[in-house]
Structure formats: structure tokens, C-alpha cells
């Protein structure tokens, strides 16, 4: 299992800033959401993609996936996936039917591709994705608690097709979601020997400032009581997006 950070955690960050934060926290991989500030998007030239690939190699960070919520042109996706040595993940912003159509098109273009599933129907969607011959990335969100139970069903439905788990609301947000089963979820994945990508992502855009603040500093948030939790101090001092909007 390798742990990645989604660029969704810091959507305004450049690729260089993301890589600096990943190195600071010892994270091995990054998920690049196409719509974020790292400039890997449909307007990116081949030179831009090669420069990004070079920066990633220098930082020893792999690209876990290129997450596409918007249906980017196949030509761009193919260039980016090849240049960054990664896979396309078709995001869950559209219906499962449309996701499978996009995944079929990507496969026809010889692209490694996976389909994002989530919500309370994650296991049934995962079963359909696997039946269509595609790989599965599961989005585990605290709103879908208890996550460990959903995890068991998703693992059973996906089997070897499960290549990634997006854990929304962990890390610096974690203490806000105590009791939702993130710990039990992680235990399930460990015991099952899950060896795909574990992708840290915010559960809501209102937490961006919390994540961006965490990305810029060293260290973790300890264990035990909230009083010793640096994320708690950050929350007290850094306003959320909704508070300054």
C-alpha cells in the first residue's frame, strides 16, 4: 500500500508546492485532479507534461492517478497518462453508465483506467465496474459510516479489481470524524493486505484551508487527546472557507 495525497486537498497549489508538501510529510504519491491548480489539464502542452514528470521523478513522488471529473478529451488524457506513467480514474460526478462509457473509451485508446465508486451503493457499483472489466477506486466518505462495513462489501464486490481507496476526511480532518469508522476501515484494509493506493482527500471543500495549512508545515497531529492535536490548534486559528465566505 502506498499513501497518496489528492490535489483536491490544496486545489490552488502548484505542482511544486504539492511536491514540497508531500516530501515534508513523507507521502509517496499524489492524485492529480484535472481541475486543480497544478496545471496538468487539457491546455497542458507536451513540454509541460514532461516538465511535470521530471519534477515528480526528482521528488520521488509517483502519480497514483489522474482524476477526471469533467470528461477531458481522450487525446489529452492519453498524453498525460503516458507522460506521468499513471492511470486515468473516471470521477463520480456523472452516472455509473456514463462512467463506464468513458472508461470503455479510455480502454479503447489503450489507456490504463479505473472507475470511481462511492456512496451507499459503492459495492453494487463496484460489482458492475468489475463485471465490465475495469478497475475500481472506492471513495470512502465519513457520511457513509460505518465505513468498515461498507469496506467489507466493497472488497467482496471488487476483489482484485480494487486498486485504490480515497479516504475522505482522514489526516488533518480526522478528529472531526471520530466514531465514523476511519480507524476500523484502515484496520480492515491492513488485515486484507490491500496493496493499492490509499489517497488522502478532504471530505468537503470547506476544509481546504485546514489541509493547505497542514501541507505547509512539518509533523503530524500525534495521538490521544485533542488537546495535543496540532490540527485542533489549526482549526482554532485558521478560518474555514465557509467562515470567510
Amino acid at each position, binding site marked *: 500500500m502506498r499513501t497518496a495525497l489528492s490535489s483536491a486537498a490544496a486545489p490552488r497549489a502548484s505542482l511544486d508546492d504539492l511536491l514540497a508538501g508531500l516530501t515534508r510529510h513523507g507521502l509517496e504519491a499524489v492524485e492529480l485532479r484535472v481541475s486543480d491548480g497544478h496545471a496538468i489539464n487539457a491546455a497542458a502542452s507536451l513540454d509541460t507534461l514532461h516538465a511535470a514528470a521530471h519534477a515528480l521523478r526528482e521528488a520521488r513522488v509517483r502519480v497514483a492517478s489522474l482524476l477526471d471529473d469533467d470528461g477531458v478529451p481522450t487525446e489529452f488524457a492519453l498524453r498525460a497518462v503516458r507522460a506521468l506513467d499513471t492511470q486515468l480514474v473516471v470521477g463520480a460526478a456523472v452516472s455509473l453508465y456514463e462512467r463506464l462509457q468513458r472508461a470503455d473509451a479510455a480502454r479503447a485508446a489503450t489507456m490504463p483506467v479505473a472507475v470511481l465508486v462511492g456512496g451507499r451503493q459503492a459495492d453494487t457499483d463496484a460489482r458492475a465496474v468489475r463485471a465490465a472489466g475495469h478497475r475500481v477506486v472506492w471513495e470512502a466518505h465519513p457520511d457513509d459510516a460505518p465505513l468498515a462495513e461498507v469496506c467489507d462489501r466493497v*472488497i467482496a464486490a471488487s476483489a482484485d479489481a480494487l486498486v485504490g481507496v480515497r479516504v475522505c476526511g482522514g489526516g488533518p480532518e480526522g478528529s472531526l470524524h471520530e466514531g465514523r469508522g476511519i480507524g476500523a476501515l484502515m484496520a480492515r484494509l*491492513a488485515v486484507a493486505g490491500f496493496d493499492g493506493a490509499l489517497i488522502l482527500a478532504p471530505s468537503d471543500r470547506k476544509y481546504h484551508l485546514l489541509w493547505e495549512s497542514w501541507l505547509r508545515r512539518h509533523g*503530524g497531529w500525534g495521538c490521544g487527546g485533542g488537546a495535543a492535536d496540532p490540527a485542533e490548534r489549526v482549526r482554532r486559528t485558521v478560518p474555514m472557507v465557509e467562515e470567510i465566505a
Partner: protein
Amino acid sequence: MSEPRTLDVRVIPPREKHPTIFQTFGALAPGESFVLLNDHDPRPLRYQFEAEHAGQFGWQYLEQGPAVWRVEISKASA
């Protein structure tokens, strides 16, 4: 799904970290192990293991900072 088993506790809410680690340890068969991944030296955890599972576990540092600590925790053979 295959080896290696890794438990990344950086993801887990602070108060759930130690219970999750002991839950994972409890699920191991004798002789099995998992790799704990943390953002600080988990020495207090080792003290807790020594208090509650003396003689039943192995503890081997695989990486010691500065950003990441990896410890292989094994369950002693029966």
C-alpha cells in the same frame, strides 16, 4: 490483495489510533506481522504493547524519520 500488510495511522483520527493498532494486531495469526506507518516515533505505543502483550509481540524499526516511521509489529509464534 497480497502482502505487505500496511497500517498507515496518519490517516486515522487521533483517539482511534491505538485501538485500531491493537485491533489489527489482534487479527494477526501467530507468526504474522504488519508494518505500522506513522508520522512520529511510536514509542508510547511500544510501552503499551509491553504492558498489555509482554512476550507476545515483535517490534522492529524499518525506518526512523524524519518524516515517516515504519515499524514491523509481529505476533509471536505460539
